């Protein structure tokens, strides 16, 4: 494994056992480098959250099965016993969810909950744990942290709660923080504060962050590299600069063009693609995007494209006509 890689996901397949048989939700391979912020974008149902939850094996293992490998320091997390996995969770990788209110226990003070997290992972005295909690709350930008320890979750605002969740996730100094739609439930001005916080902790603690979001604006502001997902597959992977400047996949292009920009021509209609994402039980033959793609040929509809390296391996794209569509502008 390359020394610059923190986590390597190889052919990770997660399938759900349903009444209609096994439904494969994702099939992905990617790497997370040390100290980078990796964004994963896509529409609802594209498998971005399933990817994150599969890395930490958070899904109910009676209802899903995992295949492939998730390598952290050459250890495959998917085959680890539950006990060892719990050690990884929090110490090496931790996660922040969209809705902080439902992830915090309403009956305990936030101090209690942070101290519990610290003491579950580290053998420290209560006094040290309290000090550490105060330090963490200060790190995530909560004013007067000493006083806040005795607050209950309902006494905090949405933004503050999300900061507490981030503080808890940082408690054991993990190497990777997975954030699943961390700003989606927040207002724009609060979202801006949390985005600054992510950039800040990434720099200060040299921690890799995997940021899952549907908001391309957030990706452009925060991330170094981006993965775009469609129907359980990665369809494009590039640096943020490259992706926004020169998107290759027709889906990525459509996604970027459909956003109402703050400086676009607002009198023109927004660029859209027709139809909706097909269901996982009804995946088109060939390229999964072929039924909505305006460039799709017979070849696209019958042959499955692979995720291939382009631009001297700086980017990857899953499209038969990746090189051609660059010159074909969607107008």
């Amino acid at each position, binding site marked *: 494994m390359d020394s610059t890689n923190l986590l390597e996901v190889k052919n990770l397949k997660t399938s759900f056992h349903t009444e209609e048989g096994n439904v494969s939700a994702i099939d992905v391979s990617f790497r997370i480098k040390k100290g980078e912020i990796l964004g994963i974008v896509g529409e609802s149902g594209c498998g971005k959250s399933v990817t994150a939850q599969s890395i930490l094996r958070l899904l109910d293992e009676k209802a899903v099965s995992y295949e492939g490998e998730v390598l952290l320091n050459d250890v495959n997390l998917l085959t680890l016993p539950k006990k060892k996995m719990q050690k990884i969770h929090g110490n090496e990788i931790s996660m922040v969810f969209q809705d902080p209110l439902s992830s915090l226990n309403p009956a305990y003070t936030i101090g209690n909950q942070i101290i519990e997290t610290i003491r579950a992972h580290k053998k420290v005295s209560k006094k040290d744990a309290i000090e550490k909690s105060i330090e963490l709350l200060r790190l995530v930008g909560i004013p007067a942290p000493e006083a806040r320890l005795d607050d209950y979750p309902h006494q905090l605002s949405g933004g503050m709660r999300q900061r507490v969740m981030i503080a808890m996730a940082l408690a054991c100094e993990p190497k990777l923080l997975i954030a699943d739609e961390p700003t989606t439930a927040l207002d724009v001005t609060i979202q801006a504060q949390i985005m*600054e916080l992510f950039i800040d902790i990434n720099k200060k603690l040299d921690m890799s962050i995997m940021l899952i979001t549907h908001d391309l*604006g957030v990706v452009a502001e925060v991330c170094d590299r981006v993965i775009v997902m469609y129907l359980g597959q990665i369809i494009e992977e590039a640096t943020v600069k490259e992706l926004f400047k020169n998107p290759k996949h027709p889906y990525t292009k459509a996604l970027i063009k459909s956003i109402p920009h703050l400086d676009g021509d607002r009198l023109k209609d*927004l660029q859209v693609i027709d139809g909706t994402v097909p269901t996982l039980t009804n995946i088109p033959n060939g390229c999964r995007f072929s039924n909505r793609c305006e460039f799709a040929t017979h070849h696209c509809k019958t042959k499955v494209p692979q995720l291939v390296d382009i631009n001297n391996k700086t980017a990857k794209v899953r499209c038969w006509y990746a090189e051609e569509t660059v010159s074909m502008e969607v107008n």
Partner: protein
Amino acid sequence: MTNLKPLLQVKNVKKFYTVQKFGEFKKGVVKAVNDVSFNLYEGETYGLVGESGCGKSTLGKTLLQLEEPNGGEAIYKEKNLFKLTKKELRESRRELQMVFQDPYSSLNPKINIGKALEEPLAIHSIGNAKERTEKAMEVLKNVGLQPEHYFRLPHELSGGQRQRIGLARALILNPKIVICDEPVSALDVIIQSQIINLMRKIQRDLNLTYLFISHDIGVVRHISDRIGVMYLGNLVEEAETDEMFENPLHPYTQVLLSAVPSAKIENKKERIVLNGELPSPLNPPSGCKFHERCPFATAECKKSEPFKKEVTQNHFVACHLYN
């Protein structure tokens, strides 16, 4: 635009809620909408933006009297909507309709789409059964759905299709004004653009007037002719869309616009990150409600509340900086 006669004149509308404060005898008052005035002209889209809790949705609901107003007037066709008799109010609802954020919770899961669409016609006793069905089919076509959707149940439709039904149901009575409360917020970006394009097309075809309430500034900019910005129950700034984005006057508007994450890599604007959070509406700051978070606040701002004034043509702001 000022020489035109407004279609709907909103004057000093107030909506207060009394709440029992925890552990106190005294009841608190939340001024959810505090003295808001604006005009809505025929065929335009007026965008109302602000963060959660600023009162934008309450304002929309109050105008339709889904919430009882505590004061002010809403003048439509020379009549104050707030002073109508029950019968007149019902009549007026034909012309003022609303589209909600979550179309799933506003559709009865056991009634098929066709019946749900015909319901408003039945309530207003328009046409016979056959004509209503025809009308429902027509309006389905208008919102880009097929006749077969008439027989579907809400759970069989996707989020985007459900929102089209929400729109169809508002349109079936041929309203003049449609109040849209976060109509695209629950949708994915591509579906969102489909709905926005559809709403614009329908507006052009039917000469509709929209009051478009949303927290998404990009969306509001795209669809609106004029924009009003709300903060803690007050309308703090109002201008034509391009003017608002080129020349935002109120410090809060400036912060709000700069906080929007832009999906562009080049020429990034400097983001103004605001300190603190929205104060409790139960206990709002004195004077200008924004002064605690405002980088330009002066002693004057703490004392007296600023009033809305016209700074340049059609550009209104409520801020002491522009006295």
